[in-house]
């Protein structure tokens, strides 16, 4: 546990999903770049699990203007319009990069990228590689990364950002290697690309890395976060067996023509969005499913039916092979039997406040991908997250790379504080796995799809109380786990506090204790914001 290993580089990228690897590829054009990941690069994060697709305007009949409108409307007009403009304009360019670098997306008979319809979009603009789109992107990015000079540190856990001794600037990070030994990383610029934090919920689609580390570390370093109450519940997650609960059932199932029915066999979406039906936005579909289940119209396993049995078998086999394989593993042939699904925590729309260049409110600290806020507003459109990783991954990588050299003097006090924190874990008394479980159950109960101030207060109190327990690391290898559980508690408290700050229902955030007369388009509210020094909610004017 000695800080005897120091790495000094120009750009440090934390996280190895789609955004992190894209950022590292770009940053490496400007100087020595280190990519640090708590998993094996290419295997971690949520990008390799992303199934459905990548939104890009590619056809003459489509336009960036329509994509922009769809994204803003889907986001309940809480998105930062400047970031949305960049997303829609640059998404096709970044798709071009991927294709140039060898991605094998599905093509049409006319030798063009194939596109499928996705929820909340007026044009079928979701590019895909079967239902393993994110995996295809990740493989392509990792191959491209191989041709750069980027140094990778795999299976290292960053536990805190390092700040300059006399100022606000971030100058690197402190990490643990797999044995629990401390490593110092100094960098002129640091990019957080740590993904989201939906693992703070008991039922979630996320990989093991979705623990909110970037939100928590950014917050503790003093960065400002926005809209942290905006957590997307994906409408369709698996419901059984118990341990598979929450596993993503891709929106592509509905994009390909899948229909939702309650236990009575009613195609219930006609009650909630008769126009867009199953391809409404995720917030609407998730609420519809949750409502049906609460009203006693759910299946025996506590879900609703998602049915593709009317589709040709070949379409299911070629467009949804991962779904077919996963359900077969659990004894369900989706070609002949409807799936059972229910909402599952999926994506955090909020995150660190960024400029169009991915600059956070702290000098030297950039953010991209799910850890950044503002792109998706109050509800993300399916297919916009993969595009986000590439557009803002590149922008953050480039901006960080172009930053000047920085004098980096490591503050012994900060390192000492981390050593003290770790020593505390060695002397602690509480099993972090149990704390994690308590937190996840509390968040699902009190800060889920339907919220009210009383439950949020109670959940916040639980998160705060769990933050304060003395976690126990039985060996040095268990130290990282303790840090991660603390990050989960911190992220959960940010979600609850932000949810209490927003006195309205908007997009994914529903307050059952508040009646309102305005719709999303006419909301008087802008972003919620939260940092070590201030918190509140902006009026709408300020944000536009």
């Amino acid at each position: 546990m000695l800080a005897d290993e120091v790495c000094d580089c120009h750009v440090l990228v934390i996280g190895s999903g789609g955004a992190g690897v894209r950022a590292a590829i770009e940053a490496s054009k400007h100087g020595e770049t280190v990519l640090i990941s708590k998993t094996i690069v290419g295997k971690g994060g949520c990008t390799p699990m992303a199934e459905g697709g990548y939104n890009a305007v590619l056809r003459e009949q489509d336009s960036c203007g329509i994509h922009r409108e769809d994204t803003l409307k889907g986001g309940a007009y809480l998105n930062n319009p400047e970031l949305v403009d960049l997303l829609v304009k640059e998404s096709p360019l970044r798709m071009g990069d991927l294709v140039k670098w060898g991605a094998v997306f599905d093509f049409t008979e006319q030798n063009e990228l194939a596109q499928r319809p996705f929820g909340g979009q007026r044009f079928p603009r979701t590019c895909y590689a079967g239902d393993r789109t994110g995996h295809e992107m990740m493989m392509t990015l990792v191959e491209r990364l191989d041709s750069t000079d980027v140094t990778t540190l795999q299976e290292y856990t960053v536990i805190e950002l390092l700040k300059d001794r006399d100022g606000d600037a971030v100058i690197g990070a402190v990490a643990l290697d797999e044995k629990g030994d401390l490593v110092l990383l100094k960098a002129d610029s640091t990019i957080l690309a740590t993904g989201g934090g939906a693992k703070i919920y008991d039922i979630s689609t996320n990989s093991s890395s979705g623990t909110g580390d970037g939100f928590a570390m950014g917050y503790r370093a003093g960065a400002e976060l926005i809209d942290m109450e905006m957590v997307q519940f994906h409408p369709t997650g698996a419901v059984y067996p118990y341990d598979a609960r929450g596993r993503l059932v891709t929106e592509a199932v509905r994009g390909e023509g899948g229909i939702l029915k309650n236990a009575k066999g009613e195609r219930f979406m006609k009650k909630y969005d008769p126009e867009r039906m199953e391809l409404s936005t995720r917030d609407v579909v998730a609420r519809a499913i949750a409502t049906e289940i609460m009203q006693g119209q759910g299946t025996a396993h506590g879900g609703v039916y998602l049915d593709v049995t009317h589709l040709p078998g070949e379409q299911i086999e070629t467009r949804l092979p991962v779904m077919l394989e996963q359900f077969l593993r659990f004894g369900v042939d989706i070609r002949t039997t409807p799936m059972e699904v229910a909402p599952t925590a999926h994506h955090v729309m909020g995150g660190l406040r960024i400029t169009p260049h991915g600059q956070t409110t702290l000098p030297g600290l950039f953010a991209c991908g799910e850890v950044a806020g503002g792109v998706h507003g109050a509800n993300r459109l399916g297919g916009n997250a993969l595009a986000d990783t590439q557009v803002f991954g590149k922008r953050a990588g480039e901006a960080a790379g172009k930053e000047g050299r920085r004098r980096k003097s490591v503050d012994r006090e900060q390192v000492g504080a981390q050593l003290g924190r770790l020593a505390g874990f060695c002397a602690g008394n509480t099993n972090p796995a149990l704390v994690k479980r308590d937190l996840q159950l509390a968040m699902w109960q009190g800060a889920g799809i339907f919220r009210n101030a009383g439950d949020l207060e109670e959940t916040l109190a639980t998160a705060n109380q769990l933050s304060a327990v003395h976690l126990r690391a039985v060996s040095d290898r268990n130290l990282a786990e303790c840090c991660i559980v603390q990050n989960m508690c911190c992220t959960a408290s940010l979600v609850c506090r932000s949810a209490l700050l927003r006195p309205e229902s908007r997009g994914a955030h529903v307050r059952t204790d508040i009646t309102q007369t305005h719709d999303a388009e006419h909301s008087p509210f802008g972003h919620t914001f939260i940092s070590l020094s201030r918190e509140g909610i902006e009026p709408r004017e300020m944000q536009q």
Partner: protein
Amino acid sequence: MKEFTIRVSRFDPDEDKAPHLETYTVKVNEGARVLNVLHAIHDELDPTLSYRYSCSSGQCGSCAVRVNGEPVLACMEEARDGMTIEPLHLDVKKDLVTDLVPRLEQIASLVAKKDTVLPKKADIDAMKPLKDCIECLCCVSVCPAVDVTKFLGPTAMRQEMRLALDPRDSGDRVPDAVRDGLFTCTSCQACWKVCPKEIEIPGKAIEKLRARANKAGLTLPRHLEVAALIKETGRSVPRTAESFLEKAGGTIEPYGPVKATVGFFVGCMYNLRQQQSALDAMEVLRRNGIRVIIPKEQICCGSPLIRTGQLDYVDTLKKRNIETFQSRKIGTVLTMCAGCGSTLKNDYKTPFKVIDINELLTQYGIEPPARLPIKATYHDPCHLLRGQGVRDQPRELIRQVVDLV
């Protein structure tokens, strides 16, 4: 909740000389996967247990382990009481965590051409089946060639083939594949039988790369000799004694009532090296009511050519063999050789059924054989077990004769 007692391999290189199995009893939910059992051990009993996972849904390839000796993804394999969980047969870093990174780094990457070339739909369709790989390295962990040669392993060859098919790639993939052990693969089929994505690497990548190597003049000299011999004699081994086909008559009538009629495809080894075994088999069939027709015009099935990528002459062989049996109106063709049987079943489109002798004899039954007072074990032929899926039948037969262990 159910209670499972399972064994897990534990190994800390800093403290242990060798791995040992530790027994745990945990409560798990109905339908739990192997990974959920590992979580239960880690969360409830022993937080020092190290294992790797990420997506928990079969998409990232982080969590492959061996369960009762067989490589599986821990997140997708249903947990069973009494199972033994061990790391993949790769270098172990700790407990169930293996050292994947050095092997992943050996897998080739696309090097884009200077001028942008776009693939066509046909290119995409050709590459797609090779792109499902999640690089879990189950295939590498079971490859016998990786153990004894510098072969980079099945998935590295899969990637070379995927790159060879890609018009965007500037690399010279066939020589690279040869350098990295293309010709060391024994075509045992172990890799794709453990592949969670069922990617048929031997047929879809290795044999295809070898065919490209053949076009590039990179076929091994010994393989060229075999091809020349087949073209010259119709057989893949030289004639050193009287062949089975020369010895055996055209039709062998059973002693008793006829239960079935089959045509016999002898194959080069039984025809020219193991004649007596084939003759003995004919006697067994004769005593058990099987009428056997043995057409003399049959020749090599072509397996040695297909496996080594020398495809020019294969269609000629196939045509001759199919016509030979078809012209005699034979509905079922019997094989003894595992390799020939696998080739006829998988590489041919035959108008007749192909059946291995073990399948035939268990289907019709045999007269009780004299028992021998010996203990014996059985080694599955690769192309019978994995090529044809015949596992239980030979054991059933052998058990009637000896004490099979």
